[in-house]
C-alpha cells in the first residue's frame, strides 16, 4: 500500500492578487477547430521534453484516461488550477493514456463534452517498463498520477487529489 506523506503548507500571500482576464485563444485553436479536435500523440521520447521544461513556470502534469474513474473525478480540479493560476505562471498539461483505438470514439468526444481547456496530449508508448521508472522511480504505474515541477524542483504524486490538496501543492511551487 502506498502512503504518501503530504506536508501541508498553506501559503496565503498570493491569494489577494488580482485575477487577469484569461485569453484562451491558443487552447481554443487546439480543442475547437470546428468539429475536429486535433491531438498530438507522443511516445516517451516525444513526451520527455514536455515534462522537463525549464522556463520558470510551474508545470502541473496529470496522467489520466477517460476510462479511469478517479482521474475523471479530479479533472475539474486541474481545469480550475489551469484557469485560476494561468496568470501566476502555472501551466497544466493533461497526458491521456487512453487506448489509441479510442482517441476518436471516447477521448475526443469526452474533451468536447467537458469543454476541457487545459492542454491535452496523447501518450502512446507500450514499453511502460522503460518510461514509468523514468518518469518517477516510485511510480508503480497506477493512475491517476501527477507531477508538479518548476525547473529542478519536482514532486511526484501517485494519488487522487481534492481541489484543496492540489492547490496546496501547487502553491508550494509558487514562491
Amino acid at each position, binding site marked *: *500500500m*502506498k*502512503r*504518501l*506523506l503530504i506536508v501541508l503548507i498553506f501559503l496565503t500571500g498570493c491569494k489577494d492578487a488580482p485575477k487577469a482576464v484569461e485569453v484562451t485563444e491558443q487552447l481554443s485553436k487546439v480543442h475547437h477547430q470546428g468539429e475536429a479536435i486535433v491531438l498530438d500523440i507522443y511516445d516517451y521520447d516525444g513526451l520527455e521534453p514536455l515534462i522537463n521544461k525549464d522556463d520558470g513556470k510551474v508545470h502541473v502534469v496529470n496522467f489520466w*484516461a477517460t*476510462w*479511469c*474513474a*478517479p482521474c475523471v473525478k479530479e479533472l475539474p480540479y486541474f481545469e480550475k488550477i489551469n484557469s485560476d493560476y494561468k496568470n501566476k505562471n502555472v501551466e497544466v498539461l493533461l497526458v491521456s*493514456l487512453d*487506448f*489509441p483505438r479510442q482517441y476518436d470514439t471516447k477521448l475526443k468526444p469526452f474533451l468536447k463534452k467537458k469543454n476541457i481547456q487545459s492542454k491535452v496530449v496523447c501518450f502512446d508508448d*507500450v*514499453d*511502460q*517498463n522503460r518510461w*514509468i*521508472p523514468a518518469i518517477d522511480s*516510485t*511510480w*508503480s*504505474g*497506477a*493512475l*491517476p498520477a501527477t507531477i508538479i515541477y518548476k525547473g529542478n524542483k519536482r514532486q511526484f504524486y*501517485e494519488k*487522487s487529489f481534492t481541489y484543496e490538496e492540489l492547490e496546496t501543492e501547487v502553491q508550494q511551487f509558487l514562491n
Partner: protein
Amino acid sequence: MKTLKLLAALVCFVSLTAFTITTDSGYEVGDVATDFSLENIDGKMVSLSDYKSAKGFIVIFTCNTCPYAVAYEDRIVALDKKYAAKGYPVIAIMPNDTDVKPGDNMEAMKARAKAKGFTFPYLMDKGQKIYPQYGATKTPHVYILEKTTDGNIVKYIGAIDDNYQDATAVKTKYVENAVDALLAGEEVAQKTTRAIGCSIKTKS
C-alpha cells in the same frame, strides 16, 4: 571537492532511502507472502495451502472493470493453461471495493469468469485485507510465488508482458520468463517490472 561530492552522494542516498521507507510497504522480491482464505466465484473458500502439489503460484490482482485488466484476460487464461499443469496455477484476486466499483461485485465476477472461460479461481478480497499486505496498487498486478519449506517466497512483481495493446506484438513475456526460470531451478532474471494499471478502488 572530493569530500563535497561524497557528501552530496551520501545526502542523496540517505534522502532516497528515507523516501523509500516512508512511501512503500508491501512485499519486495524475497519476502514471504501471506496465505489467505478468500471466497471464490463458486462460493468456496480458497487458500494457497489447498494446492498441495503446486510448486508455486501466479497471483494476479485483477478485476472486471479496468481496461488494462480486460486487455490481459485472454493472456491470463493462457498463462493458467500453460503453467497450472506444470505446478504454477494462476490465482486471480479482485481487490476493489465493490461499493465503489459495482461492476466488480461477485455476480459480475461470476459472469465475467464464465464469459471468458476462466480456468482458475477468481477470488474476492472481501474487506480488502490481502492486497495491502502484498503491496498491490493496481490491476493487473502480478506476484509470482515459489513454494518453499520457508513459505511462499515472492520471486517476481510486476506486469504480464511488455505490450498491453497487442498480444501479438509482445517482445518480452515477463511472467512466462520468470516461471520458466523457476521451473528450471534458475534465478529469475527480471524480478520487477512496471506497467500502467487502474488504481485499486477504496472508499476513502
